[in-house]
């Protein structure tokens, strides 16, 4: 009877806590651009941080599907609750672990959950790590990939090349972050197992290119040249000091650079376009990820995704991540790439790299 009563009270207490958390969670999830919702969120955050540690999974669940701003509000709240819970050894480790294990939860709170386990029980985090190798979260995959890299290095140090190769291959299969992929690709190449990096990343390598249109005074960026109005691959147009016509271009670069300088020579104050078609197996959410240090615009199926008029400040893989919806079948992709007037040695590049992947960075390959 006593046990039943305690159980009843506990359930009741949890119910009250759950009811009291739903309002502050809602207020925080409502925050948006330009500080919208900040005042309510400030009060809600204070309420949340007073919550019992047992509510941590619920606060974590509040991050599911939240926008990045709300995620940060809740991340900070989880941090405060957890600081206190870890101090008094009351972190609800089992329910946090269960939250982590449920891949229906979003990536961001699952990463937070893993961090909490690492803080509270590092040995448990170590034990969980191998199970994260195929995790939907690329951030969580880093841990087991790192372990496999280390294991491969140890095998190699002992002269066991086959075992090292196997560890590296397994790691490469799961690696999604550039630094780990680069490291693994080099090690595998040295072991006679070169990696098909364009395929691993999902770089689009085959394009039609057209240039040179003008970009004098950087005005080409906002000028609608013919390829923005029509895609006629057999057409030619008056360009800057030359006729502009479409040519075939296949990148040989293992990081998928589409280099306009190669076919058109190192021109300045010019605009080029690249066009390709991506045959998708299904209609689905995806990301187009671009790296480019020139002015650029990208269209998918005629819709402008993003435009950026920054020149020669640097480029990297996945510099820009553009969420898209792919159609089943043919999807047209048009990239505008503008070179400016600068003459320094570090302003030569007139190129971009583009890949199609899911939101974890896993390549989406076109139908053959």
């Amino acid at each position: 009877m006593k046990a039943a009563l305690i159980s009843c009270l506990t359930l009741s207490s949890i119910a009250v806590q759950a009811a009291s958390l739903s309002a502050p969670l809602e207020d925080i999830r409502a925050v948006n651009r330009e500080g919208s919702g900040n005042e309510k969120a400030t009060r809600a955050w204070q309420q949340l941080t007073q919550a019992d540690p047992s509510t941590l999974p619920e606060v974590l669940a509040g991050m599911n599907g939240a926008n990045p701003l709300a995620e940060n509000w809740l991340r900070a709240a989880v941090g405060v609750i957890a600081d206190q819970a870890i101090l008094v050894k009351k972190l609800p480790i089992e329910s946090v672990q269960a939250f982590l294990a449920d891949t229906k939860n979003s990536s961001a709170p699952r990463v937070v959950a893993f961090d909490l386990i690492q803080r509270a029980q590092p040995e448990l985090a170590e034990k969980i790590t191998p199970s994260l190798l195929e995790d939907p979260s690329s951030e969580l995959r880093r841990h087991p990939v790192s372990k496999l890299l280390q294991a491969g290095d140890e095998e190699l140090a002992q002269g066991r090349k086959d075992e090292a190769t196997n560890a590296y291959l397994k790691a490469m299969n799961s690696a999604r972050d550039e630094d780990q992929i680069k490291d693994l690709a080099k090690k595998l190449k040295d072991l006679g197992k070169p990696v098909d990096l364009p395929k691993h990343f999902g770089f689009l390598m085959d394009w039609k290119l057209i240039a040179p249109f003008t970009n004098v005074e950087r005005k080409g960026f906002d000028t609608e040249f013919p390829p923005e109005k029509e895609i006629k691959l057999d057409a030619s147009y008056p360009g800057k000091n030359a006729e502009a016509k479409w040519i075939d271009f296949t990148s040989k670069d293992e990081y998928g650079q589409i280099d306009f300088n190669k076919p058109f020579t190192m021109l300045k104050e010019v605009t080029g376009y690249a066009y390709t078609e991506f045959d998708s197996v299904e209609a689905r959410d995806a990301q187009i990820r671009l790296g480019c240090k020139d002015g650029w615009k990208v269209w998918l199926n005629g819709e402008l995704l993003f435009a950026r008029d920054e020149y020669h400040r640097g480029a990297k893989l996945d510099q820009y991540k553009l969420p898209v919806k792919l159609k089943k079948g043919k999807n047209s992709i048009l990239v505008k790439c503008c070179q400016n007037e600068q003459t320094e040695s570090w302003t030569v590049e007139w190129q971009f790299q583009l890949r199609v992947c899911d939101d974890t960075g896993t390549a989406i390959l076109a139908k053959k």
Partner: protein
Amino acid sequence: MKPFFNLLSSLILLPSALLSAADWPQFRGPNASAVSTETKAPGPKLAAAWSIDLPGRGLSSPIVVGDKVFITCSSGPDQANLHVFCFSAADGKKLWERVMKATGRTMAHNKTSVAAPTPCSDGKRVFALYSSNDLFAFDLDGNLLWLRGLTYDYSNASNSLGMSSSPVVLDETLVVQSENDSESIAVGIDVVTGKNRWKKERPKAANWTSAVVYQNVVALQSSKGLTGVNPKTGEIEWDYTDGAGTIPSSAVTQNAIYVPSNGLTALAPERGAASQLWRAAGLKPGTGSPLVIGDSIYVLNGTGVLIKASIANGDEAWKLRLKGPLSGSPVAAGQYIYIVSERGDFQVIDTTAKEGEVIHTIELNDTLLCTPAISNGAIFVRSDKKLWKLQ
């Protein structure tokens, strides 16, 4: 010495009644002048009192409010984990830490990092800004008051080399510059709600300078010049348009601003005009920003030479070569200037020596690109790995 400190106090007014003279509330301290206003100066003979390991990179300066030191850093493969720390100034004990995630782009040149802008405080709140344009407001106990993602708000407000302009707070308004080649803006943000009071388009050009505060006006520097804006409304009070540097920031006193422009240009701005007092082509700052002590201005040029000149006319008094290379800005308390080289040589310069003299050096054996903070007779410096208190 006391009259000297009285002179300093008359030159610099504290922007908030909640701050004390011992506080170092922003990049380059009170009014971003780089000169301590407290009477308890650190002096020349400094040694490490304590040091603390940091989990991420950063070249932002520490700031000090009361007995608390605040510092930012960024960790993770893309530096997307944004840390704010609060330590006890007395013994370096961690009082609180918050870890957030970047919502803007974290790409930056290897030499800089996402934790490049220095946080600032109005004495009640701490505002932490990052190169990703993420901005967090905490109270001094670590309670989150509000947050913004300025690149989330304005999607082209970023610089692929990284940004470093530090915010200033004045008149219940936080002024943030996010100036770059694309969507270049400055915003005045209500410190209570985190919402814009105003937003201004700024010159479309990369800019790493930080604002200074002059006679209750925020002076925003860019390649075009120096613009004084009313912090509460964003209205332009005066505008100097003869160009300015995009890396070193200006020096400020109560009567003039010394802007890195065509060498160095002294201005006496007032509503509607920014009249020029003098210009000295030879006083061109390198990366670090100039500062004023008494009737002299000290300029660190691009070759690591510290130049002393008159604030009356820019005439040079002496030149002193320092151990370089130097990325941080010099700061001063009393007669001493403090600066740390990229190789970790913390140097104390006696400005009263006939030709200026480095009278003490501490080897910190690390790469340091930060600008020191001065508070309560101590100096705080940081690297990508450590925070030191020197006393």
